[in-house]
């Protein structure tokens, strides 16, 4: 079931001026419900422009954005409701924190929704729990926290709105490998616990291969591929043709195949490669035994 559908979306920056730039051209895509979708592309491929269309922060130059089959721009005055349903966490979201306490900052979204004080408190605790923030941190100033904690506070601020779709633009950018894994694992847990639809933007193939069910590939404002992770990574040669780095391990398998070792197509984790190699080794042993 498709949660969000983009129909023939184009977006042009400053049209009619010398600085005119086509950021997106003729994009058609589906974001599957109850799944984690990864959006991959180079810097300048239009990723960030695309995510801002999903919650109505910007209006497409042409084309339609459908949420549950309904055009989000049908009633432009009610676009705020769409923003509560599609939660967007921008790049480096820790720079948007402003309240005196973590608690108040997480409550900003729910407060804008006009909820009761009790409901807001409930949601804040829930969001803190989901993002792994300790209850004792809630009364600290957000400016006293570490970088990773600040980012989790910012994500909690969006999760507290209980969005049906959670979109995150480069949630792991600028974090060390451990911080990156913590955030991505947290997002996967969040998806499993709440059954929400999640979309993660990244340019790291490795992360996307490990954490996403579906993959969408953008290049130069155009859609290159979309599908399940294994389907997309099976076309690793096409991916490297558009200049995207496929996961290291997939590249290794590709190189092995070129040298005559019959590795499977569409390997993108070390575990898969290990199993495939073990299988090959086994069959080879059987063959040599046969000769003896």
């Amino acid at each position, binding site marked *: 079931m498709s949660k969000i559908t983009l129909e023939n979306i184009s977006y042009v920056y*400053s049209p009619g001026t010398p600085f005119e730039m086509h950021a997106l051209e003729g994009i058609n895509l589906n974001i599957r419900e109850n799944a984690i979708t990864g959006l991959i592309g180079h810097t300048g491929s239009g990723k960030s422009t695309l995510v801002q269309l999903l919650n109505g922060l910007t209006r497409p130059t042409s084309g339609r954005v459908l949420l549950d089959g309904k055009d989000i721009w049908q009633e432009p005055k009610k676009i705020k409701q769409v923003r509560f349903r599609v939660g967007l966490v*921008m*790049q480096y979201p820790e*720079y*948007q924190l*402003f309240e005196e306490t973590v608690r108040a900052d997480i409550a*900003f979204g729910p407060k804008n929704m006009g909820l009761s004080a009790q409901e807001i408190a409930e949601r804040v605790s829930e969001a803190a729990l989901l993002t792994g923030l300790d209850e004792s941190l809630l009364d600290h100033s957000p*400016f006293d926290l570490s970088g990773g904690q600040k980012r989790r506070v910012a994500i909690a601020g*969006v999760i507290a709105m209980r969005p049906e779709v959670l979109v995150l633009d480069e949630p792991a950018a600028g974090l060390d490998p451990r911080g990156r894994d913590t955030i991505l694992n947290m997002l996967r847990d969040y998806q499993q616990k709440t059954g929400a639809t999640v979309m993660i933007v990244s340019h790291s193939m490795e992360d996307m291969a490990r954490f996403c069910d579906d993959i969408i590939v953008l290049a130069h404002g155009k859609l290159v591929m979309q599908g399940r992770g294994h389907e997309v990574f099976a076309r690793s040669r096409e991916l490297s043709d558009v200049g995207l780095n496929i996961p290291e391990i997939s590249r290794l398998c590709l190189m092995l195949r070129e040298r005559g070792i019959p590795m499977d197509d569409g390997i993108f984790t070390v575990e898969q490669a290990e199993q495939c190699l073990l299988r090959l080794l086994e069959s080879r042993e059987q063959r040599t035994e046969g000769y003896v």
Partner: protein
Amino acid sequence: MKSITLGQFYPSDSILHRLDPRMKVILAVLYIVATFLCKNVLSFALLLLSAIVLILISKIPMKLVLGGIKAILFIMAFTALINVFFTKGETPIVEWRFIHIYAEGLWQALFMIVRITVLIVGTSMLLTYTTTPIMLTDALEQLLAPLRVLHIPVHEFAMMMTIALRFIPTLVEETNKIMSAQKARGADFTSGSLISRAKALIPILIPLFVSAFRRADELATAMECRCYHGGAGRTRMTILHYSPKDFVALAVIVVFGAGIIVLNRLGIGYTM
């Protein structure tokens, strides 16, 4: 946020781009003086012509320049109206109750519009559109260097100006980002009473100030790491040299000024 093209550098390879920035500052000052010398139709016509010539030789698209003028349309309209209604003269055109409009008032309004337009176009052609902000502050620092005798920290002022100019686009971009982030959390900046709108600015201003201070701190550290210690004994990477074309430009503007004075003397039509 998008319409701040007035006073932005536009890269091109015209003769105006290649003039020495110090000379361009001098030329701009002289040009401003020239706009105020104009007194009658002939001299204003020459002034308007000179502005058009400036745009043409600067190789900057006319559309961009006219777009920049749009920003001051209101001021021009206001000035024109004041002049039309409040200039007393001898040849009345409309006299109805308390409204008296004289031919002199219309001329005056027309002259003021031309003057303001040319003032903006001329200075932006000579300076902001064709000179990078860094070159401009460099030029100002050197032109104002004599003030050091009076213990005015000219270098420090120039450095502050350079940094301020450098960070305007960065802060604009930052503001847009923060606004989007808060809008994504349901913040509303466009509706409600004046007080609630002012309150809605807090979620933008606090992160903006925090990041401005953070940037300032980082910049100070980076400058110290490169042993910056103010202007004393500092040498320059690019040393400005006047070339013959600079003096030709100076001669042209002097002749232009003389031309305006001569045309003023001819005394045709209304004289300001």
